[in-house]
């Protein structure tokens, strides 16, 4: 039936493609007796759910894959080329990507931008040009979105340190502010943003229009001897950041015009063992990985990837996950991992799921209540993990 077949092949182009917002997986039409000809279409998805997790492909895979933690199935992908940064609109309408593209791949004209994707069609809506951004990747705090979803802050390093501010409502670059000696941003609602500094202080950048006023806290940590992992966590409900240092010290900072920083405690001491030290030859449990911790905000429990080693092994993957109750400053559970994991996130749901991946790019979903590994996804992506944080 050549004519029929030909029709099928060409029909789709003439129709245009129907956009189906129905079931995410069409059942194959071949289980019954009569096999019917099919036409091609394109699926869409719902806005981000708290049970989903977003895995950056990192160096090897130029996309952030969206997985449903409950089914372990992939929902779609957002383009995130090497060294791009990904963020979710707090209202769930958009996915944002801060990225740098040369006009000829690795040569030509440099183009920096925030690309805006519709969260249901995953279509590119627009690009907001930027004067620049840092090229590093695998960081969650070089591209942050304010809690109200109206402003994005894009860290730049040229190698002069600064921040580019983007109006996400007008989708326009607003201004660039300098941020000497600091990086690793966190939102500071109603003020602007805060950042960690090489002198061990927390800088707070108050933004008024295109003006920025920078104030510093007293130094509270050693940026060179016991650095704070720059993939820290931020809780928008409490307006609070939780920091973790290489040795295992945990700080919390209450944000505002003049942030206050808690006295630290040791994660090892919280587990009943001796605190981590900076001296070599002292074998101990240390935190490590690229994204070494995740905060379950409803319960105030922090999940930390831990490994046995010496100091300066801060990039090593974790062989255990320690669950810390931040209120009581106790490690309430230690879980052994089947294979070492490098990045960790947790769903902000009543029944939290841990999302982890390792250097090989395989991801797992673990039920916190039972400790059971619910799903294992090969080649999910090897870099940072993001979750939607319901308001």
């Amino acid at each position: 039936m050549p004519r029929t077949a030909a029709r099928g092949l060409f029909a789709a182009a003439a129709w245009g493609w129907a956009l189906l917002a129905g079931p995410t997986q069409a059942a194959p039409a071949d289980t019954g007796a009569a096999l019917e000809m099919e036409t091609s279409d394109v699926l869409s998805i719902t806005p981000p759910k708290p049970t989903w997790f977003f895995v950056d492909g990192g160096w090897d895979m130029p996309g952030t894959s969206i997985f449903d933690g409950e089914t372990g199935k992939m929902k779609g992908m957002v383009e995130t080329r090497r060294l791009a940064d990904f963020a979710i609109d707090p209202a769930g309408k958009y996915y944002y990507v801060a990225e740098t593209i040369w006009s000829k791949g690795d040569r030509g004209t440099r183009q920096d931008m925030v690309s805006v994707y519709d969260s249901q069609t995953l279509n590119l809506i627009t690009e907001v040009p930027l004067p620049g951004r840092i090229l590093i990747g695998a960081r969650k705090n070089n591209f942050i979105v304010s809690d109200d979803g109206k402003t994005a802050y894009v860290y730049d390093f040229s190698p002069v340190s600064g921040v580019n501010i983007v109006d996400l409502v007008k989708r326009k670059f607003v201004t660039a502010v300098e941020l000497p000696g600091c990086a690793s941003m966190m939102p500071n609602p109603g003020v602007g943003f805060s950042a960690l500094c090489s002198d061990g202080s927390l800088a707070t950048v108050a933004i008024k229009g295109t003006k920025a006023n920078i104030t510093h806290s007293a130094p509270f940590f050693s940026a060179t001897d016991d650095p704070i992992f720059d993939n820290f966590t931020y809780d928008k409900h409490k307006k609070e950041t939780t920091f973790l240092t290489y040795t295992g010290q945990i700080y919390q900072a209450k944000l505002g015009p003049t942030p206050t920083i808690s006295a630290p405690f040791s994660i090892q001491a919280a587990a009943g063992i001796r605190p981590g030290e900076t001296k070599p030859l002292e074998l101990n449990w240390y935190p490590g990985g690229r994204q070494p911790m995740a905060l379950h905000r409803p319960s105030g429990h922090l999940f930390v990837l831990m490994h046995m080693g010496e100091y300066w092994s801060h990039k090593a993957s974790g062989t255990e996950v320690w669950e810390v109750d931040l209120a009581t400053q106790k490690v309430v559970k230690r879980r052994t991992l089947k294979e070492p994991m490098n990045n960790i996130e947790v769903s902000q749901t009543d029944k939290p799921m841990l999302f982890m991946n390792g250097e090989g790019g395989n991801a797992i979903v673990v039920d916190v209540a039972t400790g059971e590994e619910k799903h294992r996804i090969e080649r999910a992506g090897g870099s940072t993990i993001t979750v939607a944080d319901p308001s």
Partner: protein
Amino acid sequence: MKKFDADAMGERLLRKLAGGTSRRSMLSRLGAALVAAPAFPLLPVSRAEAAKPDRSPEGKTGFARNAQTKDDTKCDYWRYCAIDGALCTCCGGGIHSCPPGAEPSPVSWVGTCINPDDGKAYLIAYRDCCGKPACGQCGCDNTDRETQLYVPQLNNDVIWCFGTTSMEYHCSTAVLVGSAS
């Protein structure tokens, strides 16, 4: 399914693909292509007729002998007898559906695959979904009756993203387009 004037459709599409070439020029080029040798998805049909595949158990390929009809996220699903790439069913799409934000190519390579439930051969259009980076899930490369570049519509290595906004390859679908018997 609606009725179409397939020839008219085809021509319109092909003119679009050729980037605004005049009708006359396009027809002469197409004519040459169609007469001299199959270079379009129209033609797998004549290929399917020409091959008159032996579908007795002994005539089945290794793929056909082991194929299943239940799980379209596995490489041994019957329609995938000549697919090459990531299965869209593992990428947020479906057997004939592109994942969100990707765009199906209107032209494709084809396979002739045997459904083990009815023992019949069907024409499968492997339409690539384009415009997103490679999905990376469920990579399959099956090669029943897959041939080389000089028979492009039976070659599964070509990036079949023509007439789409972007030619970036995301994943492949396996669309049932007709019976090959």
